[in-house]
């Protein structure tokens, strides 16, 4: 019994960290910037393809490929922000949905053309393969990647948005773009940078989560609900909220798998239903919004 609970916790938390990593970029773009970014998965996929290419074709070490993949996703997002995305910030949410879902479909078609319609694996280095013995059971070694990256990005984002001038500017811009502009903040540049950061984090998550959510053209559409679930349950704009939500969703689904295998996915959606009926704004509302 004790080992069952321990197993649920270990697998649940490690799955939750994967969920957090694949949706952390979305908490920035959808949460902090309040931009309805359905194309989040596209940037995660770009990161995944980039890492796979760096590792397989160019033979770069995994860790370097991981960082470069995030950079590639960020740079592409930066270009898209200037060309397209910034035109719809002020427009109704439906326009944002249409634009980003269009990006999703373009991403699917392009990646299918370039990389083929089958999945592309990101080869792991020797030290991340196989299993690690925890004493009473084993755990896939690769799961330490989302664990480490998850905690690092949580800390990094908190520092960036709460403790730097850029963070102050971003929060000011989001809350009142006009006033922020009049105070001399270059709101366009702040938005572009934030969007690129969100996409870079998405790219990082795409690589970190690739063992569970393998990279393939339909990635952005297939896992969209999963990303949105984490952000919605956590409360948009709240980084710690997303973190708690991801761990909670991961643990509940994992408990379902151990205890009632056929209903595991329902457990996740049931939890989402309960949380959102109780607190429509998510577990942790953003206090500064008032």
């Amino acid at each position, binding site marked *: 019994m004790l080992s069952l609970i321990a*197993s*649920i916790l270990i*697998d649940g938390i*490690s*799955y939750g960290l*994967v969920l957090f990593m694949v949706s952390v970029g979305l908490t920035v773009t959808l949460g902090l910037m309040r931009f309805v970014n359905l194309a989040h998965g596209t940037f995660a996929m770009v990161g995944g393809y980039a890492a796979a290419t760096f590792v397989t074709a160019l033979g770069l070490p995994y860790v370097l490929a991981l960082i470069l993949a995030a950079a590639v996703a960020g740079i592409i997002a930066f270009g898209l922000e200037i060309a397209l995305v910034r035109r719809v910030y002020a427009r109704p949410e439906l326009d944002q949905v249409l634009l980003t879902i269009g990006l999703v479909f373009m991403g699917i078609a392009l990646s*299918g053309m370039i990389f*083929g*319609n*089958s*999945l*592309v*694996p990101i*080869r792991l280095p020797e030290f991340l*393969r*196989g*299993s690690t013995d925890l004493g009473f*059971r*084993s*755990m*896939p*070694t*690769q799961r330490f990647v989302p664990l480490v990256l998850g905690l690092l990005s949580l800390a990094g984002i908190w520092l960036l948005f709460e403790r730097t001038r850029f963070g102050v500017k971003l929060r000011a811009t989001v809350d009142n773009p006009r006033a922020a502009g009049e105070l001399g903040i270059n709101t366009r540049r702040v938005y572009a940078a934030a969007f690129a950061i969100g996409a870079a984090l998405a790219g990082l998550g795409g690589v970190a989560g690739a*063992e*569970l*959510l*393998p990279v*393939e*053209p*339909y990635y952005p559409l*297939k*896992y969209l609900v*999963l990303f949105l679930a984490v952000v919605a349950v956590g409360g948009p704009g709240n980084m710690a909220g997303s973190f708690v939500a991801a761990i909670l969703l*991961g643990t509940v*689904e*994992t408990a379902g*798998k*151990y205890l009632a*295998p*056929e209903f*595991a*996915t*329902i457990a996740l959606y049931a939890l989402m239903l309960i949380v959102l009926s109780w607190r429509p704004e998510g577990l942790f509302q953003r206090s500064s919004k008032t």
Partner: protein
Amino acid sequence: MKLTKLLLAAAVAAISTAPLMAETVKVGVIGPFSGPFSGSFGEPFRQGVETYVAMNGQPTDDIEVEFIYRDLQAPDPGRARALAQELVARDGVQYLAGFVFTPNAIAAAGISAQAKIPTVIFNASASAVVSQSPYYVRTSNTLPQVSVPTAQNALEKGYRTVVTAVSDYGPGVDAETSFVKAFEAGGGEVLETIRMPLSTTDFGPYLQSIQLQEPDALFVFLPYGPPTYSFVNAYRNNGLDDAGIAFVGTSETQEVDLQSLGEAAIGLETGYFYSAAHESPENEAFKEKLAELFPDAEPNPATVSAFDGTHALYEMIRATEGQPDPDAAIAAISGASWESPRGPITIDAETRDIIQNVYIRVVEQEENGRLVNREIKTYEAQPDYGVQD
């Protein structure tokens, strides 16, 4: 008299010198040519058809076959029926072919039966499919057909206890049912049958709880692509192989996914109907032509099913000389046998379903680093075990 002879001679000359008008026979192929299933089915279908045509030319000198491809991305019975109807009524096809998903094949059966359109099923693998229309023929496989020999092999290898873990959808449930039946009939014990939701991404917990039950082997059935990839990696990374729990599968190591599974796949044992490593001149010729036409393509079970399906279409077209005579066409293919790239196959004269060898294969790495399904054992001439009870 003389004049009549002259006229006759002139008429004969006119006929024999007139350019031969080639008869065009249209075949409608329905499959996922775009979308998430195009990589594992739609593209292989087209490659199989085109490879067969490139190797064999037209059925006869004066019959030309025209393939009309229609895109059907997912299980969508209403749309399947509409597409079949449109192909028959508007495009005037004499034959239908394709069909990845069982619900689509079942939905189109009414059109095939009423309009008497001989139809070659390239994939849909539930047992019941072919019985839905007297004009249905199948060149792929059925789930019991591959699961039963796989269960027998597990018993012969000395596995006494097994846990089954299948994706919770039609084919998964069929595979589980026929495996469990055959395994228990042979004296084995099934400790637990787990059905995993299709949307599962993290298989770790399932594998951990299976490990606690310490079975001799684990029987799995998963859809192609991402679920198989995640599951195989999870099997390795949760240490089930070290715990001595053998992996028993069917289509999991199919060629379209095999290279991307990578090292995790080495040593996995599966029972299925086609391996690209099958040693025969027919397979060599097929692979050579496929590589020439489609350099990036993997010879996949779906490619071979479509290749053989095209052979079946050609046989029917030849037997009827390109004329619409559905009963003669079906009579010509029922009971037919030929050597396919996968090995010898027969279309059952009664059921119009395929009878073929099922091979037990183990994944090996070749010197050039590529992974192959090495055939180590053959269960000859396996029927569809699903219709026998």
